[in-house]
């Protein structure tokens, strides 16, 4: 038989110290989602320089990529994208009823694998930036 219990409202961020792994997963997924949709609008705006001229497009991208802060922000973007993907896979399995008993462990696994991928990618992302 199924059994449920009340964890309280997750939107009440003031009680964050009481949050469980699943609630943190929910918050991180929302946060990374907000970052990604914000980036999508910014990304299309930057790529739109292609409508002006090929030269402007190349210069804009190369100009941005020459800034160390942009390279560091790209590492941050990679971090939220990888976490959102891995936690999204976890959510799809939970939706299908697979692995719910281990949903806290799969959240921790998402964090560890995300961190490993990001750390391994840092040399590529920051090459020539400093």
């Amino acid at each position, binding site marked *: 038989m199924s059994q449920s219990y009340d964890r309280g409202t997750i939107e009440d961020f003031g009680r964050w110290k009481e949050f469980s792994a699943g609630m943190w997963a929910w918050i991180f997924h929302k946060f990374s989602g907000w970052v990604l949709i914000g980036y999508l609008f910014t990304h299309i705006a930057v790529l739109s320089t292609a409508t002006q001229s090929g030269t402007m497009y190349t210069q804009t991208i190369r100009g941005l990529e020459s800034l160390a802060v942009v390279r560091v922000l790209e590492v941050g973007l990679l971090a939220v994208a990888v976490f959102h993907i891995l936690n999204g896979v976890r959510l799809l399995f939970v939706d299908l*009823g697979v692995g719910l008993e281990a949903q806290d462990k799969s959240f921790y696994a998402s964090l560890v694998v995300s961190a490993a991928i990001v750390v391994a990618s840092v040399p590529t992302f920051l090459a020539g930036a400093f």
Partner: protein
Amino acid sequence: MAEHYSSFEYKGTRWFLQRITAVFLIGVLAFHFMLLHFVNHAAEVTFLGTQARMQQVGYFGTMIAFLVTATFHGVNGVYNALINQGLTGTRKQVVKWVLVVASGVLIAQGVRTALYMAGIIA
């Protein structure tokens, strides 16, 4: 805890599309990052290189599908998050239509940019 749990039951079109687009985006977002950061480094991107990729029909179609699904998935996610925060009534309707218009503008501008990149319009 429940012995078996699944939320994979009918909950509406937007709920279903959010999952379908998620499955598609898992693959395409990973592909996009790999191609433009590891195969071709972002710092070495040129218009001619972008044009060569966008002139391949399969790549062009994938990028358009990427744009449309990412826009839906992202904007629908924002809408759901705001509803979770307690958005109701007239404000919910206003937010919904602002997001619909923003999505339409983003997709239109994205497709227009893709057509320039592919050299279809110049």
